[in-house]
């Protein structure tokens, strides 16, 4: 079965881009192989760990379960785009201050999900935090610090 490659055009971290992709390529593969963006990374391959989290049209998705072809025309944002001109975002700063990571492999996924959570609920309660982030796994077990980081980020975003 020979499948035809197609050209997809999308906005990647604010810039219009194009890529030649085969239909069976996933978004995370294309981000890594064609755009050298490694913040979203494949781990469990089942959408359960959240290491491959990227934002497509404003919604977090698992990049390893998302065909790159489906990003045609979309706005794609990765962890590399958080923050402003080399400065860390409030969420990233909060993760640093709370020490909410160890090996760091899952961290970009948590940071992106936490950013999405705070966009939707600027002042989340514990239940909202647990609910929103329960689809991300951290084998180092930094969960207590991650919850602290999200609370801290909420305060920072409020300008506290």
């Amino acid at each position, binding site marked *: 079965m020979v499948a035809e490659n197609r050209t997809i055009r999308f906005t990647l971290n604010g810039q219009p881009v194009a890529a030649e992709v085969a239909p069976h390529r996933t978004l995370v593969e294309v981000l890594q192989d064609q755009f050298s963006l*490694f913040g979203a*990374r494949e781990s469990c391959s089942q959408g359960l760990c959240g290491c491959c989290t990227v934002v497509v049209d404003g919604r977090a998705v698992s990049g390893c379960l998302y065909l790159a072809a489906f990003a045609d025309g979309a706005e794609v944002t990765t962890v590399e785009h958080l923050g402003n001109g080399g400065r860390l975002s409030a969420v990233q700063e909060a993760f*640093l201050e709370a*020490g909410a990571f160890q*090996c*760091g492999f899952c961290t970009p996924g948590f940071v992106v999900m936490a950013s999405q959570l705070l966009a939707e609920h600027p002042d989340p309660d514990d239940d909202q935090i647990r609910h929103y982030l329960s689809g991300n796994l951290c084998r180092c077990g930094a969960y207590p610090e991650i*919850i602290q980081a999200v609370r801290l980020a909420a305060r920072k975003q409020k300008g506290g």
Partner: protein
Amino acid sequence: MTVMSGGQVGRSVPRREGPAKVSGRAEYVHHLRLPGMLVGKIFRSTVAHGRIKRIDVTAAQALPGVVSVITGEDIRTVIPHPYYGPAFHDQPILALDKVHYVGEPVAVVLAADPHVADAAAQLIVAEYEELPAVFDEVEAMTSKAVVHDTLKPAGTFPDLKHLEGKRDTNVALDFRLRRGDVARAFAEADRVFEHTFRTQQVLHLPLEPFVSAAETTDSAATIYTASQSPSFVRIEIARLLGWPENRVRVKTAFLGGGFGAKLYIKLEALVVALSLMVRRPVKISLTMEEQFYTITKHASTFRIKSGVKDGRITARECEVWWNGGAYADIGPRVTQKSGFTAAGPYDIDNVHVDSYALYTNLPPAGALRGFGIPQLVWAYECHTDMVAHELGIDPVAFRRKHILRNWRPQATGTVMRDAEIEAVLDRLAARMDWAKPFDRGTGTIRRGRGIAIGFKASVAPTTSMAIVNLYADGSCALYCSTVDMGQGSDTIMAQIVAEVLNLPVESVTVVHPDTDVTPYDMATLGSRSTYHMGHAVRLAAEEVRAKLAAMAEELGLPPGSNVPVAELFRRKYGMQAGNVVGSGSYIPAYKSPDHDTGLTPNATPYWMTGGTGAEVEVDTETGQVRVTRLVNVADVGKPINPKIVDTQLSGAAVMQLGFTMFEEMNFDGGQVTNASLADYKIPGLRDMPVMENEAVAAEQRDGPFGAKGVGESGTFGVSPAIANAIFDAVGVRLTKLPLTAEAVYRALRAARGQPLAEE
């Protein structure tokens, strides 16, 4: 040890690599792309034990895009004797003649496109003549099914020099310890208690699965690998190739988790051999599923027996069987080292330990965060609670009565020092409000609490080396082969350098392991780095400090003058030029235990102690257990970075919580049936209890700045503390991990005299 006045040690310095990690820019081998690189996909055995009759690779070879398909016999063209391992040279790079477990690598497809390699691997056909297999560690002692025809000791590590070559047995190592007269003590005892406990096979499951790449020429090999032991990799690959060490270069990056998985040789020998054969760079990245076929944690069976006379334990007999799977990996060391402490952190005059490392036809087992200690603590701390309950004594009081205090001999005969076991117990009891009444719940929800403590001898004797390079502007670099896999070693080591040289910690960079650049380190394992590498780094920095002082003297400055470092260099070299390089090496004293008695005057450079208190809620209608609170207390000496110590304790406890409550590799005829994160569950946010962590006031007096290791201590007490809490809540005792809802429910039904049918 003199404590310096730099103010950099004992402080919660934020992690050095933090900004890179939170912005997705930290470097992992996972990301590595080399020009012209091929990727390999492994074809694996589908039988647990069998002779290879035929491997047909023609269809795979014919798939467009496939560059090469390689089998075990092909490997011999570049490595004639392709067997490796830290304890025994028992593991072939790809299966030769026989396969020994389901999932063993048999062949590899190489292609530029991973999807093509993947598709081609599915086209390989292998035929086997199946042989009888053995899966249970106790059966393996006497089984007619023998996993390996002969055993070939590696002879690499000094603590494993006594391993013997053997035939027709599954016993890779038997460790024995004999202290006092157990038989007599049992005969004289008022009461004797005996229980058997089991643990299940689980795995590390780092979120960055195993990954290694190699690029080679005829005379040199560079290996990029997510490894905890770059120095070992270099030495072992050099041995396999028959090359001197200096032709093999091993580089690591940050590791996306290790936990003991990424030790010794995993994919490194394979990628080197493949690269030599196809003369292109080769990378192999395992999938999450393939991690289940690579290295695991030992399942175990532990029979423990205690004799009590006048309310005191006078004798303890321990028999432990370790399920090592098809290759020994580091199982023999797990078996021996854990055997030192199998009787628990108690002062018992008569101790008898037999600990057996066994081969079976399961995926290999090695080191996992605790090196066998969590399996032992699980048994001896449940047993201790059961004995206390039978004797009608409060479990904390019963432990305190037997606690092993400093200056008393431990079971090996080694005199205890700098081990704050009693303080750990006391702080646990205080934090748990043990003396106060406890809310026991109502209706179908019953509450309970439990505690457990454990201890561990550090791995010894092992060597660490470090180089500190001070630049002419006063900044400096540390070269060491300790791998930062999330435990925060880069930060700790930078703090030690900064402390000795009285620099801000920001002025110290840490050069990641590269065996062409960074000196030897035994490995990043067993909570050894802070102590061993910490000493080497301290010594290297002290040498720099001494050389600086000499330089100042040479320049005619009075002793203690405060001329800035940069000015010293300018005066000596006439400009900003030059370096001051210091090196340090450290190997602690150690005496191997006597072969027949297990006794030694120096079993370990330091003791690690950890304990956990657990509170649980048990649903009596379903058996579901919710762990609501975990209190983790440890003796880590004087913390170099209290925040990192805290996260290490809590992270270790979270991992052990998974091993306690639900993690379990399920097997059907040796085939793992739940090799994915969908079917093998690890703890998530909604499984988190309230976590509290505490490092007790302590000092390891011969440790660097009073510190010692911490990475594993948080695991020790978790499983028995929870089981003890479940007993406290509902009066049922589980003796096998994991503590599933169904197991609790069945025990509740059995206790009511209405056992639930097997179905």
